[in-house]
């Protein structure tokens, strides 16, 4: 009985992963990570950076808006296929990709508490969105 349950669960899960739309989900995460890394790089490396001069900084503004726009479109595409209860918890992987890429590019630390915290957040998001659907 329990075996069947696990099998069904696995089938359902794998049917969500093996589809062309899965690319949209992953792509959405990658775009957002690249956007965040790029923005952080830009603000910490531009010497003539002032808070109020952002509109004048065309490269940064275009990059940010570009990744935001592209991200929104790709996310919409993914949501056509995926139920929110899968899409949103999956999207919380962004936290992890940011954690790792910030470690690689900006020497930010990764602690065990960071990882545990993110896992708890992701689980919370899963419960929140799953409840919405039923």
């Amino acid at each position, binding site marked *: 009985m329990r075996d069947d349950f696990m099998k069904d669960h696995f089938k359902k899960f794998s049917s969500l992963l093996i589809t062309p739309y899965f690319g949209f989900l992953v792509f959405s995460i990658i775009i957002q990570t690249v956007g*965040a*890394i790029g*923005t*952080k790089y830009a*603000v*910490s490396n531009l010497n003539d*950076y002032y*808070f109020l001069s*952002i509109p004048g900084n065309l490269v*940064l503004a275009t990059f*940010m*808006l570009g990744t*935001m726009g592209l991200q929104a479109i790709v996310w919409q595409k993914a949501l056509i296929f995926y139920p929110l209860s899968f899409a949103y918890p999956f999207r*919380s992987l*962004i*936290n992890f990709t*940011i*954690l790792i890429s*910030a*470690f690689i590019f*900006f020497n*930010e630390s*990764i602690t065990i*508490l*960071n990882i*545990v*915290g*993110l*896992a*708890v*957040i*992701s*689980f*919370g*998001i899963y*419960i*929140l969105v*799953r*409840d919405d659907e039923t």
Partner: protein
Amino acid sequence: MILMLILLILTIIILTSIGQVLLKIGSSSANNSLIKIFTHPASLMGYFTFAIVAYLSIDAIKQIELKVFFAVTSLTYCIVLFFSYFLLHEKITKNKVLAIFLITLGVIIFNF
């Protein structure tokens, strides 16, 4: 200085939530015509709110670690729930309260 930073991040979280609720109001405004949804005053205000959020986020990202920024903005989920309860009259269930508790706990653990 730290107080200002906390205020900045709180503003970002609250504005993001307001933006999402505005988009929801815009997209549930009757007929399913895409153009009408996108040009609905609430939708336009939502996009404007997101523009402000993007602007403020740049300043926040400059001052704090990237990982912290992303973890803390997860609190948006909690604030959205409150707004959708008061403004959209959506129900709050036991599971949702548990979820909010978990997300908040996660953010605290992350920063501990």
